[in-house]
């Protein structure tokens, strides 16, 4: 009966000039200061302008809103000259006051934003020198200061100059931006409208972001031309999309890698040999096959194994360090025995106590890699460990796991996506001040810390690279995380959507060039 209904409804599909696409979820906020997810980052790219960004073509630092820049105050500040004639979506002029307002807002303790909190370590202040000239001051001299200017500029006039921006400000849902599209969020999606501007001229007039549903429903709707795109198609559904000549799969590089964080604060996991043993018990080939559907012998699979905290395409990835695609039980058992664990009745015990591993996964990952949690559980169980499995909501992941308050877990399955800079400081540095602020299990290793500070103080790219290569090697034996793989994100777009270049991470950076002819 439902099929009949779907069939009947199929006839009412109308595809106007509006471009509709499925996002993974609704944005949590249209205000970049309150961004929490990749969805947020992508949406902000359409609605607002970042001061500087990496051109997807040349990879050069570029800007849509500045004409020139110069170092000032001995390298601790940057003087920016903004382009003329840029307007906000409400017609007001875009100027230095807005740049400085944004910096001030991030520095204002009253802005209850995690992102602002992090930026306070970077920015010292901002000064409006002329209508279009702003002087941005940093807390210290940075290797490439403009890399730090990747923040979106907010309109001073909307907040009436009040730099303490609360999470319940109307701007966060119905923002006034300067980007190619004016966006407004409703309960089911975000509606975008093209706005002509001195620095943007998008070809697509109207766009609708819709909340993701069952991936299979998304794919069917796309095939039915109900929508024109899906931002992230889970691997299990990709073959079906690839098979259709009305649809195109497009790679979207997030430089993201999957891991299993190991809790070294648990007595039985403190010894690195136990962590190495767990690493040996994991059969990556089998995991990848069962949860993502990649055959072991598949050529250029969507998912390549990694042995350290970088994706293989990154200059920081240390190719000298081998990955172990298959499990090696004997090696694992030997390591566990050396670490003082005993096997009683086929289950591992520590100091006479049976070990039951509490394994958690960031819930949405189960959409990309269905059953990954239970597969990892199965493999560890086959290796002689009892286990309990938990799904962790995005909210808890952000507020508890990433703040190092999830010590009740032994293993946590997650995924990192790098932003502009491949900076792993927050992940591995021992927590202190702004350092290691994403260090899940508060892992604390002096050797690692010193390599990380080597990278921070590096003045040349080779210095930076050497530091990270060494770090990669060290982490591969220390294993505070079991590194799994890099998994491509792939979008699906109907062929009516053309010249749709997808920018790594921010997705819509060159949206002006996109075309849609239904």
């Amino acid at each position, binding site marked *: 009966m439902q099929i009949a209904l779907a069939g009947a409804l199929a006839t009412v599909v109308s595809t106007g000039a509006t471009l509709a696409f499925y996002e993974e979820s609704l944005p949590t906020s249209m205000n970049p200061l309150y961004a929490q997810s990749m969805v947020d980052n992508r949406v902000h790219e359409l609605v607002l302008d970042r001061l500087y960004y990496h051109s997807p073509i040349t990879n050069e630092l570029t800007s849509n809103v500045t004409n020139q820049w110069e170092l000032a105050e001995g390298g601790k500040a940057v003087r920016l000259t903004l382009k003329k004639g840029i307007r906000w979506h409400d017609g007001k002029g875009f100027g230095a006051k807005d740049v400085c307002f944004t910096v001030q807002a991030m520095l204002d303790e009253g802005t209850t934003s995690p992102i602002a909190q992090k930026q306070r370590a970077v920015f010292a202040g901002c000064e409006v020198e002329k209508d279009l000239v702003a002087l941005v001051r940093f807390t210290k001299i940075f290797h490439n200061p403009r890399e730090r200017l990747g923040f979106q500029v907010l309109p001073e006039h909307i907040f009436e100059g009040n730099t303490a921006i609360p999470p319940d400000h109307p701007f966060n849902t119905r923002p006034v931006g300067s980007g190619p599209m004016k966006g407004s969020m409703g309960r089911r999606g975000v509606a975008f409208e093209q706005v002509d501007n001195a620095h943007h001229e998008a070809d697509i007039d109207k766009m609708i972001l819709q909340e993701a549903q069952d991936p299979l429903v998304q794919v069917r709707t796309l095939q039915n031309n109900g929508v024109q795109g899906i931002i992230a198609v889970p691997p299990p559904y990709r073959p079906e999309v690839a098979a259709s000549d009305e649809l195109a799969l497009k790679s979207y590089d997030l430089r993201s890698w999957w891991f299993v964080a190991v809790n070294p604060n648990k007595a039985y996991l403190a010894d690195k040999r136990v962590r190495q043993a767990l690493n040996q018990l994991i059969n990556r080939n089998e995991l990848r096959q069962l949860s993502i559907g990649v055959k072991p012998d598949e050529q250029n699979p969507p998912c390549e194994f990694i042995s350290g905290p970088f994706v293989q395409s990154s200059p920081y990835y240390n190719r000298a360090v081998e990955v172990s695609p298959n499990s090696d039980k004997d090696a694992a058992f030997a390591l566990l025995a050396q670490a003082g664990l005993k096997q009683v009745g086929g289950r591992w015990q520590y100091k006479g106590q049976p070990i039951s591993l509490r394994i958690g996964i960031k*819930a949405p990952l189960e959409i990309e890699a269905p059953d990954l949690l239970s597969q990892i559980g199965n493999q560890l169980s086959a290796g002689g460990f009892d286990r309990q499995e938990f799904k962790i909501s995005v909210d808890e992941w952000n507020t508890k796991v990433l703040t190092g308050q999830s010590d009740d877990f032994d293993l946590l399955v997650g995924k990192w996506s790098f932003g502009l800079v491949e900076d792993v400081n927050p992940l591995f540095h021992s927590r202190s001040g702004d350092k290691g602020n994403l260090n899940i299990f508060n892992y604390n290793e002096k050797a690692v810390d010193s390599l990380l500070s080597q990278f921070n103080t590096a003045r040349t790219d080779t210095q930076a690279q050497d530091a990270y290569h060494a770090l990669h090697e060290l982490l591969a034996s220390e294993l505070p995380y079991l590194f799994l793989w890099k998994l491509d994100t792939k979008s699906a777009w109907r062929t009516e959507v053309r010249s749709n270049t997808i920018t790594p991470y921010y997705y819509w950076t060159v949206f002006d060039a996109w075309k849609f002819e239904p």
Partner: protein
Amino acid sequence: MPGAPAGRVNRVLPASLAAAGLALLLVPGFFAPEFLSEPDMANAFAGPGAVPPFGADQRGRPLLEYATQGAWVIALPSLVAALVVMALSTVGGLIACAGGRHVQTVVQIISEILGALPRLVVILVVALVLPRDGRGLLPIALTWAFLSAPGAIDEASAVAARLGGSRFVEALRAHGFSRPRIYLVHLVAFNLRPVVVRQGVETFMQVTFLEIALSYLAVVSNQSSFTHADSVQSWANLLDLGYKVVLGVHSGHALALGLGLVALVAVTAVAVTHAVRAR
């Protein structure tokens, strides 16, 4: 009297159905595996023919495991909830006969407010407040039981009132029955039994539906399950897998099994109600 044996005969079928149904619902749970067995892609979506008795899921794991795990999730909490409701409605009936008017008024006021609470609203909030390790169907089922008790109490006291309330007790006292006998045998066993048991059975059914609804909501919104461990599959997972038949997935057998299980609960409920109805 010709009516009685006939009555007994009419009872045999429902009684045996009820017994069988309850056994089918409660026993398999004890044989449920703690985790689904290893995937076997060769059997993906295999039908009952290939993987008896109910076929397999998209990873070739037997649906039987879903069924038994699901049964394990609902069986005990639903039973407890049912018992709680039965106990409370019995008390309600007794109060209607024994309690003074003030007691009844108080009971009514409490019932009115409790009974008027939008149940699922409270349930949802409770479900989300429960700490991870305290999560499970039992606390939710109990909340549900207390929220649905007022209705049951109302009905039981209505029955008691129809008997004549305190006058009924006095009349039997005049026949020389002892109070305990009057309350336990004449009132509860003879007169309240049908309505009380029906209430309990309804609660049992509602808690089953509730579990399915909550589990499904957790699935669609990427939440950890509110009613069971994340390694356990509930009947909602069966239905969720099964409904995809709409989208051209070969999971019709999962849907059939899911609906079959729901039907089993309902049939058992009806059977129990008939088995205990008054002569």
